[in-house]
């Protein structure tokens, strides 16, 4: 079976393939964007909103997005919930089980940065982007189901700019800038209100 890489390579080399490649890209991106099957990597509260998003009131299926329990059939991993150090290897493994092309949505603040579990806890990973390349971050604790649907619509925009050609491809996980400092989301620690007040003036 011809893989997408073969086609891309052929188009890259073929005369006039550039135009064709653009067309193929457009078709592929449309198709991928409209058929984002999600793997619900739901661990905590956000998983409830993920369920709500797929159920009667919000109905993810309208967007062509259906949750599949098997990572092999999925395009997007929605990390919904807190990821602990104990859970992280499993998440990474499931991500690796997903076939390319694949995307990651970090749903909710726990998945984005640890959120409320950022400080003072010993077991929470401060954001899944420490070990997964995240495409869309959703803020919220938990985000509304609409926010998740909005993120999928935003992800479509991102997909629309991608290409099947390796030369035009988006950077894959290993090429993305790796988070050097796991605490990058943290505002640098400084005394609470650095006051340049006149001598003796109160802080507040």
């Amino acid at each position, binding site marked *: 079976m011809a893989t997408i890489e073969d086609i891309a390579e052929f188009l890259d080399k073929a005369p006039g393939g550039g135009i064709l490649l653009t067309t193929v890209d457009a078709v592929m991106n449309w198709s991928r964007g409209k058929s984002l099957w999600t793997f619900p990597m739901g661990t905590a509260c956000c998983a409830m909103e993920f369920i709500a998003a797929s159920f009667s009131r919000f109905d993810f299926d309208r967007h062509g997005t259906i949750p599949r329990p098997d990572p092999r059939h999925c395009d997007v991993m929605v990390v919904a919930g807190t990821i602990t*150090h*104990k859970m992280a290897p499993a998440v990474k493994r499931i991500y690796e089980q997903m076939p390319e092309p694949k995307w990651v949505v970090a749903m909710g603040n726990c998945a984005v940065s640890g959120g409320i579990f*950022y*400080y*003072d*806890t*010993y*077991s929470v990973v401060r954001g899944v982007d420490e070990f997964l390349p995240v495409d869309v971050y959703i803020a919220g604790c938990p985000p509304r189901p609409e926010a998740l649907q909005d993120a999928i619509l935003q992800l479509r925009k991102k997909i629309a700019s991608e290409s099947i050609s390796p030369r035009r491809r988006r950077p894959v996980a290993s090429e993305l800038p790796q988070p050097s400092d796991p605490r990058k989301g*943290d505002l640098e620690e400084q005394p*609470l209100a650095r006051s340049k007040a006149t001598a003796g003036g109160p802080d507040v």
Partner: protein
Amino acid sequence: MRIEELRERVCAMYPDLCPLFSIEFGDGSIAVPLERVHSAAADLKDMGFDRLGMVTAVDRGDEFEIVYRLQSRDLRAAMFLKAAVPKNDPVVPSMCDLWPAAEWQEREVFDLFGIVFDGHPDLRRILLPEDWSGHPLRKDYADDRIVRRPDYI
């Protein structure tokens, strides 16, 4: 049953421990020496405390305090059973033979405090990964993965 009645019954059973029975915030609590905690628990179970609601520990600085919450459906009463556990050799008799409910809860206390339960059938970490080092609910637990909160109130 009111707490005062409960105190009388406990005092009748253990005259020597009666001064250690305190009533605070509407709850009765008896502190016993560590070596008597199992026999006291067995006696209290015979008295009617058929449920072990909670097993936990508190790091009191120089020693641990192991706290059992006993509940009774028939007596309609609840009380604490507490014992001080030395920090250098934290070994507590397991309550699994009295209440199987203790099994997981004692594993949790072992996991988070490092208190060893003597006679527990399967004492392993339960919440943290097997290869974790340290017991995080101890006050002196140090872990460079912890980001300290800014210190202001």
